[in-house]
């Protein structure tokens, strides 16, 4: 990873139009074979947070049980990694030649982490605090995180496992996958899919232009859920015992379900149609201009009945 990105970044230094390839999680294992060029441990106290700024390479952060931050960096000899406490922020950055740095960082599980990069793969696991990760070209993989979890990539995939709290995930060109998330969730893509599994969200908003959407999870009684896509399909799988009202809008699409929904009246192209499951306490808004909407019983393969015909 290091050699690859170093070469690519060297090219970038003279010709910005020649870009690195997608940053991926390929270098962590190979990188361990090499002694870190930087290896520094700094004691920290509760209330401090970590801020990592990287140009290219990868940033892998793991939670541990010590009140200290260990930064290991693998980089060229012309690059210098700086670990600088400034007030409550422990800032990690690189200077010198514009090159790739592969970081492995251990942080206390309570420590909020912020990572910003350009051609950077980001991975954070084992922390129980705020995580903010943003990159242009690179995947983001977060395991855990609480209170506020933000992950944004332009060209990479975003994968979150078990985030809790206020979750904000987006990718412009790739998909967003969240498994086991709980709390308030906002997801956005343009061309990528949205896959939400084993969710326990109270409020959820998912939007895409061309992406398919899938939600599988519980329904909080007063929850509000909104799914909107232009050309994608929407699949929502919830327990049959859930209580929810569904407002469905499609223009060229259709609606299929195997849930025992109650409906009122005839539904037509481009018009709002409302269905109720149970007493209808949670609110679902499902909108797809041209895609199919499926409302499914969670864990059931029972065939679907078509409720909304194309006009």
């Amino acid at each position, binding site marked *: 990873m290091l050699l690859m990105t170093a070469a690519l970044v060297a090219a*970038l230094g003279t010709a910005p139009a020649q870009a690195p390839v997608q940053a991926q999680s390929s270098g962590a294992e190979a990188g361990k074979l090499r002694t870190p060029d930087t290896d520094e441990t700094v004691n920290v106290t509760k209330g401090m947070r970590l801020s990592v700024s990287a140009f290219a390479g990868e940033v892998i952060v793991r939670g541990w049980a010590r009140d200290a931050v260990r930064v290991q960096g693998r980089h060229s000899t012309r690059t210098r990694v700086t670990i600088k406490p400034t007030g409550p922020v422990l800032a990690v950055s690189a200077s010198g030649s514009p090159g790739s740095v592969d970081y492995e960082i251990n942080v206390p599980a309570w420590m909020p982490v912020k990572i910003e990069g350009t051609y950077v793969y980001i991975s954070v696991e084992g922390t129980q605090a705020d995580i903010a990760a943003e990159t242009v070209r690179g995947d983001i993989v977060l395991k855990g995180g609480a209170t506020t979890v933000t992950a944004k990539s*332009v060209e990479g995939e975003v994968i979150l496992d078990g985030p809790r709290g206020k979750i904000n995930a987006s990718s412009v060109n790739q998909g967003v996958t969240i498994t086991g998330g709980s709390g308030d969730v906002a997801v956005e893509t343009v061309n990528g899919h949205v896959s939400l599994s084993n969710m326990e969200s109270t409020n959820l908003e998912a939007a895409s232009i061309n992406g398919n959407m899938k939600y599988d999870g519980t329904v909080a009684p007063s929850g509000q859920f909104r799914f909107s896509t232009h050309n994608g399909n929407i699949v929502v799988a919830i327990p049959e015992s859930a209580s929810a009202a569904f407002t469905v809008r499609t223009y060229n699409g259709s609606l299929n379900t195997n849930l025992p929904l109650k409906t009122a*009246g005839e539904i037509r192209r*481009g*018009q709002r149609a409302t269905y109720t499951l149970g007493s209808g306490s949670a609110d679902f808004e499902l*909108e797809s201009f041209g895609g199919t909407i499926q409302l499914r019983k969670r864990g059931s393969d029972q065939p679907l009945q078509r409720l909304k015909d194309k006009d």
Partner: protein
Amino acid sequence: MPTHDVLNERLSEYLDNELDAAGRAEVEAHLAECGECRADLEALAAVVARAGTLTDAAPAQDLWPGIDSRIAPPKVLRPTFANRRFAFTMPQLIAASLALMIASGGMVWLARLGGARTDFPAVQGEMSSPVRPANFGDAAFDQAVADLQQTLDAGRGRLDAQTIRILESNLEAIDRAIAQCREALAADPANVYLNTYLAETRRRKLELLRRATALVDQSSAM
């Protein structure tokens, strides 16, 4: 047979062809014997037709003081308020839309006081002048898109080719969605879903453009 009030409430749904066969039959039977509802239906049809022909227009005056003075304190709620489900007739929705557009005009005027960075023209006029509907949507959107696109084009050399390609490809995807929505709206101008969806999709284009220009700025700082 439902009461006059209930059937009158259904006129907008009748007009939008949203009632099932039984519902339509009830309304039509009532219309045959109720002149008041016939008049309301004609008025509704005229409003919908008018809504379909509205064009964008800049506000002619400062409207906010007039709006402010007319906002009445909230009425005391009936005891059954919490248990009611609400539906709005087409005139109510259009009145609300007009009020929103007027309020937007007022907010733009207020925003104009915020500094030289605001892009909207100053709005001037007499408080007592008659209220006219205003729609800032297209003009403001087009201007913002043009500005951001210009910034992005100027910074094109500072982003790598693949990133530019991906951003442009995604902007095109949004443009296609906007175009399809506009096409659908041309055939069904009063469709609430399409109008809302168009506004939302345009907002997403602006957000992506803003993000793209932020990337240009970041690249410049490196």
